[in-house]
């Protein structure tokens, strides 16, 4: 009898926990996601500035970013017209596109000058962590927002071997832009979701 009671109690607890977990509001999820993306972009900005020492690295040289094929809004009006689901889909696609390149980047640090190697390794590791967390959060968020949010455009990254220093710097520049896109999309999404909480925007 005592054992049954204990089991019953445990079951109730588990149910409560599950219910509470599901009770996390979307606003909070988006807020956390936007925070993660903000961190991600800040890291990438710091990294590029350390390596190049300039604000902008010319991208449009020979190679473009592997994510350039993805159509994203180019100005404010366009961005504001995109639906939440599309915004989320874009964010998730971009995020997905960079999981492999980050791995390649982390393994290619030995090409860089010795002084920059440790910084690069650490920062790339952090970026991977944030990227992982963000991906998980966005997956949960997308599951709540409908099937449109579930689509992810595949953006393969061809290079699998070690890349040269030029490649590294271009890759970092591309990542900086893409992280900014993700951050922007999520922040727009955040403001759209916070109808009752204007202080978020």
């Amino acid at each position, binding site marked *: 009898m005592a054992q049954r009671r204990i089991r019953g109690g445990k079951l109730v607890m588990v149910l409560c926990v599950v219910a509470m977990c599901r009770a996390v509001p979307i606003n909070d999820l988006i807020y956390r996601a936007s925070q993660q993306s903000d961190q991600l972009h800040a890291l990438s900005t710091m990294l590029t500035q350390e390596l190049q020492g300039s604000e902008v690295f010319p991208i449009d040289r020979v190679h473009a970013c592997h994510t350039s094929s993805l159509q994203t809004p180019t100005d404010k009006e366009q961005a504001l017209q995109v639906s939440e689901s599309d915004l989320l889909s874009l964010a998730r696609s971009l995020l997905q596109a960079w999981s492999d390149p980050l791995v390649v980047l982390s393994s290619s640090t030995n090409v860089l000058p010795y002084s920059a190697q440790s910084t690069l390794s650490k920062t790339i590791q952090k970026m991977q962590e944030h990227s992982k967390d963000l991906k998980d959060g966005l997956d949960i968020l997308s599951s709540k927002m409908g099937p449109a949010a579930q689509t992810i455009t595949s953006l393969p990254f061809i290079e699998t071997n070690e890349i040269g220093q030029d490649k590294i710097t271009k890759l970092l520049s591309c990542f900086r832009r893409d992280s*900014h896109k993700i951050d922007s999309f999520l922040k727009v*999404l955040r403001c759209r979701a916070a109808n009752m909480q204007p202080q978020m925007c």
Partner: protein
Amino acid sequence: MMTKVREVLLLLLLPAFVPHTDGTRYSLPGKPTEIKCRSPEKETFTCWWKPGSDGGLPTTYALYYRKEGSNVVHECPDYHTAGKNSCFFNKNDTVIWVSYNITVVATNALGKTYSDPVDIDVVYIVKPHPPEKLEVTVMKDQGWPFLRVSWEPPRKADTRSGWITLIYELRVKLEEEESEWENHVAGQQKMFNIFSLRSGGTYLIQVRCKPDHGFWSEWSSTSYVKVPEYLHREKSVWILILVFSAFILLILIWLIHMNSHSLKHCMLPPVPGPKIKGFDKQLLKSGKSDEVFSALVVSDFPPTTSNYEDLLVEYLEVYVPEQQELMVDEGKDHDGCLKSIGSASDSDSGRGSCDSDNLLMDKSGAAKEEQQQQNQEGDQIGTETQGPKEAWEKETMLCANEDVVSPDASSKKVKTWPSVFSPVTPYSLSPLDPHNSLEMHKQNCLSDTQFPPGSPSSDHCIKKALQSSYWEVCFNNNQPYPQTDVHQQLQAHSDRNISAINDGNAPRNLLLPTRMTEYVEVQRVNEENKVLLHPIPSGHTREEACSWVGHGDNYSKVKGVNSDNVLLLQREVVEEESMEMAGAAESCYTSSITINTPKPTTCSHIALPVQEERVLAVSGYVDTATMFSLDT
């Protein structure tokens, strides 16, 4: 025609080839530098450049740009909106997440100069306008004022849609010299509170903003605010604490005052007063010492029981030289002695200081008592002079100054004293009766005082003997006739001594020749060298004679008694003299009989030193028996 055209061409070309006479040179324009582009709201952007030297010629500038992924070169659409040397890109011309390659070209008559190209991405160059509508109000929080600062985001920045996320920062400063700005990061909120204001101070406040990934804006215009006067919270708290502590202090003082007596007892315990049994402090304070001492009289003094061991004081046989003076001397000393003896048995701790006094009083008391007894029995001895009276009194005083004689005061030693006189030539037995009586008295004295404890009384007796002999000697000095007196006394002494010795070593055989001492006056010496004596009716002569004798310093002192019950006499000049006198008396006697010239001092010097030294060398104390035996 052709010549005209050539002339024109030459004229036109001449300035180019011919150097100017004024020194100015035309050249290509300098390269434009420092191309800076900024976007205030991520929708438009403006580029500025810094022109180089114009080369002396009017120079024009043009900005060309090329977008990412396209080779089409465009020129700046708007050179005027943003001012001179600027290019404004409006919304239509602005795309984000696309890098621009911008080049500025300076053109003058001589040519063009291209600037270095610059790649920009609009989203990275966002620098908003300062916040607007800065408002500062003084508000009160439970009586304490604080500043509430509020503002609006810049007009153009679209924060509502989330297109731009702005972070704000404000700074505050007191309106006075040498005060510095105090920065506060307000985050994304558009309102901020400032506390801990200075009463009556004026504050300056500014605010600025920054996009999440961009540049800080400029500071907004300053807003002034004056804080009203108010009582600082800390001051009021301190006032409360002061009042409270003062209150507690007053209570403490009152408590201490109430318990001052008990505190005094605790901290300064009262000094115990003299605790003499029967001693009344109040009487002493009143100044009537007679009453005080009379109060000390205890009925059971002298203790007739044999509980002398209980008493601290051991009695010595008191050798009183004259009975008369004892009779006379029933003053307070006597009473005091009696009383003190009784009080000597008090076991109070405060007895220490009075010990010697009590003891000495005991001695004198015992002496006097014995004297009294002897007086009663020994009237046949005759009258006594009053000479030693003073001496007696002074002796009592001296007694007070002496040390307590140890209980081991040797009766034997005392006994030896009489032996001083033993070698003296035998004498008639006429004085034997008094002698016997004296001896008996002495015995009585002794029995009364209970030997073996050696006894200050014995010491006293010795002293008395010494004194008497001394006096006798002094009489020798001053008056020729007292010699026989001395002789007689000496004889008497010796008689007694002999008898005492014959009786054995019992301490009770301590002779007290002093008791039986009678001073008689030598009237004259007849032709047969016999000294005619007659009793001295009064002690005045003695007093005169022995006035100088009676000084406090002429008394022989018993230093102590060693283990062999030997009386240690102090080696004072006086003592020695008296000892010497005693011995000298004998030798002087012998010499005086023949020579009839009293020179006791010289005699003493001659006679005794050797003996004394010898004796002393042996055992450290004076053994008069051996001393004089050797002499003979």
